């Protein structure tokens, strides 16, 4: 969906759902996920539909992921750091459980 046009800084190693991903120091988590070509960063709580970032400017909340163990963070606002763990958020909510 996106390719790197320019050198966006030093390589930064992340894991996304346990798999290694190489980001660059200029990346936000959302940019790193898009550059790595992932097909979803979450599935919706209502119907379980896959989502990727939509606005990349902090208003749509479609890029919510778990970062270093904290859930529902806006991936488009968080810069990457070495050793960061990112988990995509999966699954419908189970109301009443």
């Amino acid at each position, binding site marked *: *969906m996106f390719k790197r*046009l320019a050198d966006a800084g030093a390589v930064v190693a992340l894991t996304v759902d346990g798999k290694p991903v190489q980001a660059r120091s*200029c990346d936000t988590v959302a*940019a790193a996920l898009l*550059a790595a070509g992932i097909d979803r960063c979450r599935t919706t709580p209502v119907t379980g539909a896959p*989502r990727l970032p*939509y606005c990349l*400017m902090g208003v749509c*909340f479609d890029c919510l992921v778990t970062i270093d163990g904290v859930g529902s963070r806006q991936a488009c606002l968080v810069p990457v750091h070495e050793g960061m763990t990112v988990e995509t958020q999966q699954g419908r909510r189970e109301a009443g459980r």
Partner: protein
Amino acid sequence: MNAVDLAPSYDLVVIGGGPAGLAAASLAARAGVTTVLFDENPGVGGQIYRGITSTPVINRSILGEDYWAGEALANEAKASGALIVNGATVWSLDPERIVGVSIAGKARMIEARRVIIATGSQERPFPIPGWTLPGVMTAGAAQTVLKAQGLLPDGRTVMAGTGPLMWLLAAQILRAGGRLEAILDTTPRRNLLRAAPHLPDFMLSPYFAKGLALLREVKAKVPVRRVASVAAAGDGKLSEVVSDRGRMPADLLLLHQGVVPNVNLALAAGATHEWNERQLCFQPVLDQDFSSSVPGIAVAGDGAGIAGGTAAAERGRLAAIAAVRALRPEARLPDPQSVRQRLQREEMGRAFLDWLNRPADSFRQPEGETLVCRCEEVTAAQVRATADMGCEGPNQMKAFLRCGMGPCQGRLCGLTVTELIATQRKSTPAAVGYYRLRPPVKPITLAELASLPISEAERKAVER
């Protein structure tokens, strides 16, 4: 910078580090007012100058000179003595000007004698069938990663919509060596009739020559088709863009139909807002110094009504001059009249652009199974049927359908819900109103709340 290093109070708190916020903070700090600027992004610049201090796109011709003009603003702010804090999320502002802010997982409540909200604009919701599919993004999103990370659309890319930003992004993508399969222009032809009376003004504005050059540059390389409908189709991800002019395979669809003020913080602070029929959005009611209905709180930049980045900086300066006057009457200040004149020049021709690029009803008021609320996945048919049943406004609509109650807090459905209710009930958006917004306007964790300092009196109040 960490939240614990913040002072308990500042003379001026500026929220947002785009052109309005940077210009306001610079002017105030230079006039000797203790100023802090909070911005939630990793670097200053806002959306228009995003990544201005760090962009890897060093070939200046790609993003263009209008982008690089932001460098001076950022440098000026840095040298001004204002404390600039990035990665700072303001989640609360009350009428007593207590600012709730989180930095790196720690929260603080900061007192401000004056506040300038400079949270700018966001892209107008573009609710078409399939707009939630992976592979569908806003044009602004693609521009954001181009500026800040040097990411260029790859694969079959289609743009759809209306407005200057769409053409600017198309030109930037082409200059960077990217490719666009097509631009689906959703501008209704009849818009020209309402725009025409404002053409003389527009011809005098700097945007006239720039706009024509941009259109020529893009149309020489990309097929442009006028369309009356757009839909994204695919199973789990975008595979096709469907319009009334046919279907085309696509990997990325970039949508844009203008920008609207980011109203969440100003509304939560209690500022009175009004409906702008030309720009089809709510905006705060402001005086000539951009002061809102809440004493001590001003709204500058595009959050005050859409006028563009260079106008935003002048508005920021005017708001800052008023703030400094109140805080430090002896301070030496630039002449507000000359700032006002510059602002007037920047705003010239805006009426033409607004009327020309006014999105068609069908692209703002969807039908059937098209999602209105992306978070809670509420359809247009549900909203329309609930309005028909007697639901009178967006706040009641929340109780029926949960629309506007997801994490985006109505940012991507608010205008659509208001307009749909107005249409169904043969009312007006002004009469229907908007969601009632309350802090926190951004989600925060319990740990962040728990990190707030507790006074002895507060501790005693809950101890038995």
